[in-house]
């Protein structure tokens, strides 16, 4: 089968806001629609029928079963643009990119938008599970008497709503608690985590200052920079924070609110197209999507150290590199999503671990070291924040622009996701 290249034309995102901040009253649909409209405005796509829009959200109201399609209908894109929802936890934004890129490569579509959105402020609150059972039973009842009998089972404690929590259903542990184990197991120090966090803030602030984000962002609800960004962040300041996760480890606890991403609201979108479509629309191409790989680990039953919840990218990466006959040295930029500073550092450590790479990755030795000068050079999630499904789009658009500004080169993306999953991808320009 003949394939062609999928071009990344550009992106748009709204600045990311801290939970219950400026976007507290914005729904996922509001944010995704605004993000699509910003993309439409940037590239003059009013009334354009695109091949498709693929997007998703991790925290989603049941009424948003068709979130992406509804957002498209509310946007300035042609109402004839089809859309569908995807959900792969924090991998959503990158997974939608893979889906749209693949369809373009196969010639099934000429253009498409890959996007993601999440709000932790306007979160879906469900009725208590017991109450839900009662209400459903009442609904099934065939007579008034039976209905009343069912409803009579309602108890006051059932009125406590079910609020979504950031925890793994199979372990009951939050992502932070999972990562705290991984961080300790891989011997990641507090200093190394704080250094990574400070660098993230400093790099992102510098990127804003030199206008790097001018054509990646459209302000929203009065916010024109990521709210979480602290331009004056430093190892000293971060060093003063108390641990937030892994407190059970006592003095060994190293993960703070400063070296972990905060709950965030936001959305990001990427415009992909065939070369022909881009040329027809007089839109320059920033970079091309090359390949991607997704892996998963058995964090429930697996090894405490090597099968950590957020370790799946460690396994996805060698498969992707081998398939493309590339090593870390072949890349100009490496983007590792900073769910927690500890995640990035444990991932890097694992790839440098000769024994681990032999045993678990089936390699002849260590996968290799990532040159820190190439890592998250314009900051990442620790500074920008991390609206789960939006992170992939943020990274793809930003990396594509980096490669374009660099006059060419290769870029690597690594994103860990809940459920023990990880998505990695290659872009080139």
């Amino acid at each position, binding site marked *: 089968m003949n394939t062609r290249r999928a071009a990344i034309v550009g992106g748009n995102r709204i600045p990311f806001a801290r939970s219950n901040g400026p976007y507290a009253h914005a729904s996922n649909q509001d944010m995704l629609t605004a993000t699509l*409209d910003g993309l439409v*405005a940037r590239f*003059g796509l009013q009334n354009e029928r695109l091949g498709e829009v693929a997007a998703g959200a991790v925290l989603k109201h049941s009424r948003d079963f068709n979130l992406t399609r509804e957002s498209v209908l509310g946007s300035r894109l042609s109402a004839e643009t089809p859309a569908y929802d995807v959900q792969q936890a924090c991998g959503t934004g990158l997974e939608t990119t893979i889906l749209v890129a693949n369809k373009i490569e196969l010639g099934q579509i000429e253009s498409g938008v890959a996007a993601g959105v999440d709000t932790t402020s306007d979160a879906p609150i469900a009725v208590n599970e017991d109450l839900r059972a009662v209400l459903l039973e009442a609904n099934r009842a065939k007579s008034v008497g039976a209905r009343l009998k069912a409803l009579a089972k309602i108890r006051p404690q059932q009125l406590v709503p079910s609020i979504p929590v950031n925890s793994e259903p199979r372990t009951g542990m939050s992502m932070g608690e999972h990562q705290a184990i991984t961080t300790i197991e891989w011997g990641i120090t507090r200093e190394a985590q704080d250094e990574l966090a400070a660098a993230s803030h400093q790099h992102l602030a510098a990127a804003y200052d030199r*206008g790097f984000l*001018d054509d990646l962002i*459209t302000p929203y609800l009065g916010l024109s920079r990521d709210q979480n960004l602290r331009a004056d962040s430093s190892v000293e300041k971060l060093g003063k924070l108390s641990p937030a996760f892994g407190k059970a480890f006592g003095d060994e606890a190293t993960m703070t609110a400063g070296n972990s991403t905060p709950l965030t609201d936001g959305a990001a979108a990427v415009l992909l197209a065939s070369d022909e479509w881009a040329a027809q629309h007089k839109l320059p191409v920033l970079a091309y999507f090359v390949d991607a790989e997704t892996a998963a680990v058995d964090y429930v039953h697996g090894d405490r150290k090597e099968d950590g919840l957020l370790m799946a990218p460690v396994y996805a990466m060698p498969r992707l590199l081998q398939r493309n006959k590339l090593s870390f040295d072949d890349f100009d930029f490496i983007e590792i999503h900073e769910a927690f500073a500890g995640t990035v550092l444990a991932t890097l450590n694992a790839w440098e671990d000769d024994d681990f790479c032999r045993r678990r990755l089936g390699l002849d030795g260590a996968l290799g070291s990532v040159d820190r000068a190439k890592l998250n050079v314009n900051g990442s999630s620790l500074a920008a924040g991390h609206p789960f499904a939006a992170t992939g789009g943020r990274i793809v658009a930003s990396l594509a622009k980096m490669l374009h500004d660099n006059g060419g080169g290769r870029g690597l993306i690594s994103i860990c996701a809940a459920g023990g999953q990880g998505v990695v991808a290659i872009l080139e320009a």
Partner: protein
Amino acid sequence: MSDRYLNLVNSPLGSAVASRVGLPQPAKLRRYAGGDPLLPGPALLGATGGKPAAALRKLLTGAGAEVVDTLGEGERVAAAVLDARSVAAPADLGALRDFLAPAVKGLQANGRVLVLGRLPDGKSVTADATRQALDGIVRSLAKELRRGATANLLWVENEASLGAALRFFLSGKSAYVDGQPVVLGAGTAPDPTDWDQPLAGKTALVTGAARGIGAAIAGVLARDGAKVIAADLTQAGETLAKVANRLGGSALHLDVAAADAPPRLLDHLAAHTDGLDILIHNAGITRDKLMANMKPEQWDSVLAVNLESQLRINDALLGSDQLNPQARVVCLSSTTGLSGNRGQTNYGATKAGVIGLVRSSAAAFAKHGASTINAIAPGFIDTEMTAKMPLATREVARRLSSLQQAGLPIDVAEATAWLASPGAGGVNGQVLRVCGQNLVGA
């Protein structure tokens, strides 16, 4: 910001009261809306020293005007056009009185008086004095006209741009241009294929397009067929995106005062367009302070955004291959640049500076494939900015013009679109006031 006073005096009761106590009675201006005829009534055509030229009559009828040569008792006209290009001695000026006196009486509300003259050329003192007299007649007459009527003067050195100028000045597009002279010189001024889409196929860039006058300009350029790039600061991106989406253009985040703005602009044009045809330098800021209290940063930022950015971007464009031939550049000046304004030494510097820029660079633009560069000097325009003025100050400012009301962003936009049109190729290096003949600094 609606003008409540204007609405009041245009109601039956308000009108009666205002006329009895001698209050100003601003009229509801005739503004252009898509599909409007050029004029809501006939145009009276006359000429000093003989019959009106056939070419002029043809231009008028071609523009859709019903031309009449005489005005019967009790008849009304929507416009009075007088070709006074032949005047050579003061005695010739009597012909203006002969034509204009009855014409003004028969002029409908929102009527148009348009006088065509010839510029003094230094060959004869008597002829020059007589020609210059037209300016005094038109400016004074503009102050006499009531009910939204305007009077303007076209110095016709070359007829290439006359058709487009007649269409602008007789239509509702010139509603807030009053008492102004414009020189129509030599230049390349082709007629558009479709007068309703004079900018079809053109690429236009408007800076400061997120709101107010810039958004209105972007809207009118798009209405007239241009592909519009709406540029503004990233911080204004949310409203900018709405503007771009409304008019089917694109949004560009650009800080015109940034050191790398010219190369970034050139890169964008090279990547996204087939070259720029129309550039509107509209981005501007105010940092008002009395000179005694003016801080360096207030001074510098206004200079950087309002003037230096225009100089640098123009230089970059002229030195690149991104500015198409017959390009049109329109720079936003202000009546403050002509008359000064208390607390605005910095702003006044830039707005006067823009006038110097336009005059000085006209030749360079003419050389660039017969391109043009002109300035628009808006007077008091109702915008978000003026809505913040104290009520009393705003009310007084609104009435201080012959039209006794503030202009709207659309008025500035219409004038800009005319200067940006192919047909305005003979207008170069000039400053057009859109001020309702503001009484200040005229």
